[in-house]
């Protein structure tokens, strides 16, 4: 039950064509070491679920520059002009979802729901292909859950069981992505002994975490 592995071992688990959630809001809270290891690996046709695709050549931007990404699902890609370019050259498919709908869909994926009705995006271009429905007099659209083969997340500390705590606004998508993938790999600053994290402060219980990589390690 030792969950500690190296970057190399982590990335070996990921095959071309995988559907991968990657935590972070821009570069903040993104597991940059795991992304870098993925950029060095010979994998392509990836489907990336992440709020953004990094910056030009940085974070997930590395994978875009190296044409390893086939499709991206997220809420805001315009902060990386290379994503826009790859999209226009039809090298990259993009699925755009409002940030709140995306985060709720990931949570729903992890929580075993079949879908949910949200009022957000009703009547807009984003909802063109979505089922609209009136419930209790208000218009909603149906959103399906989002799941993935892998989640690559970033936490501040893990204990040796895999319990996680986060740091400030680097928490963002990481705790929900930890719930919604077949295999969850957490990059952490530190690993502490079991019992060092308070049961009240643990944000991600260890049952969600399959592997731990220590930042800068190997």
């Amino acid at each position, binding site marked *: 039950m030792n969950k500690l592995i190296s970057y190399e071992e982590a990335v070996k688990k990921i095959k071309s064509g995988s559907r991968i959630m990657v935590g972070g*809001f*821009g570069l*903040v*809270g993104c597991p940059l070491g795991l992304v870098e290891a993925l950029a060095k690996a010979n994998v392509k046709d990836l489907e990336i679920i992440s*709020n953004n695709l990094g910056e030009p050549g940085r974070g997930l931007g590395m994978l875009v520059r190296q044409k390893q990404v086939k499709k991206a699902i997220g*809420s*805001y*890609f*315009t*902060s990386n002009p290379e*994503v*826009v370019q790859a*999209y*226009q050259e039809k090298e990259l498919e*993009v699925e*755009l*979802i*409002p*940030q*709140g*709908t995306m*985060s*709720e869909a*990931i*949570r729903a994926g992890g929580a075993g729901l079949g879908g949910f009705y*949200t*009022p*957000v*995006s*009703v*009547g*807009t*271009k*984003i909802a063109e292909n979505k089922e609209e429905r009136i419930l209790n007099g208000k*218009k909603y659209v149906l959103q399906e859950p989002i799941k993935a083969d892998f989640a690559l997340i970033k936490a501040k500390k893990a204990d040796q069981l895999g319990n996680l705590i*986060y*740091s*400030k*606004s*680097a*928490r*963002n*998508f*990481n*705790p*929900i992505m930890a719930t919604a993938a077949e295999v969850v790999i957490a990059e952490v600053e530190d690993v502490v002994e079991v019992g060092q994290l308070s049961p009240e402060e643990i*944000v991600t219980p260890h049952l969600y975490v399959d592997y731990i990589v220590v930042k800068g390690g190997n």
Partner: protein
Amino acid sequence: MNVKHYIAARAAKELKNGDIVNLGIGIPTLVADHIPPSIRVFLHSENGILGVGPSPDQDQLDPELVNAGKKPVTIKEGSSFFDSASSFAMIRGGHVTVSILGVLQIDAKGRIANWAVPGKSVLGVGGAMDLLEGSKKVIVTTMHVTDKGEPKLVKELTYPMTSERKVDLIITDLAVFAVEEDGLQLIELAPGISLDEVRQKTDAPFRIAESLRTNEVTV
């Protein structure tokens, strides 16, 4: 007078003690500088912070503490952090009192476009739709016309709409409009601005409030 700060200062006058406030990028961000010291409001940032403080000094920069515009921030005492799903649950669930947003266009009914430009690849929406849908009150702050001099208050949106939900108040460098059941109502002029100028630079039809006045906001 810095007109953007004038707009922000006018918007700040809408805030009440205890409000939970989400500020968009651009002019809305400036509102934080104009909150009267007599009231205490709490800034919510949709990437997972309640209780955002002022920008840090260069030596206080914390790479793990940014706002939804990805700019470094600080936090105030009593703040808290939470994940993205929890943050948008707050927004969508109506727990954010006021959102102040930037805008590309506003139509005659008070609906806005602020996330996409026709002809360009539409690759970013972020939290704009969530904030507009979920916030109890929505104020838009904007220059009255575009850089090219075109009216931003238009009869019909030519840019993609952000939400069917109307905004509540529109604050520009020239005027303030309340959004009513039957459309826009001009309620204030900015200092030194004439009704004629507003008429000339506004494409959308609007009513003029009986109580129309020139406000006294200065910066």
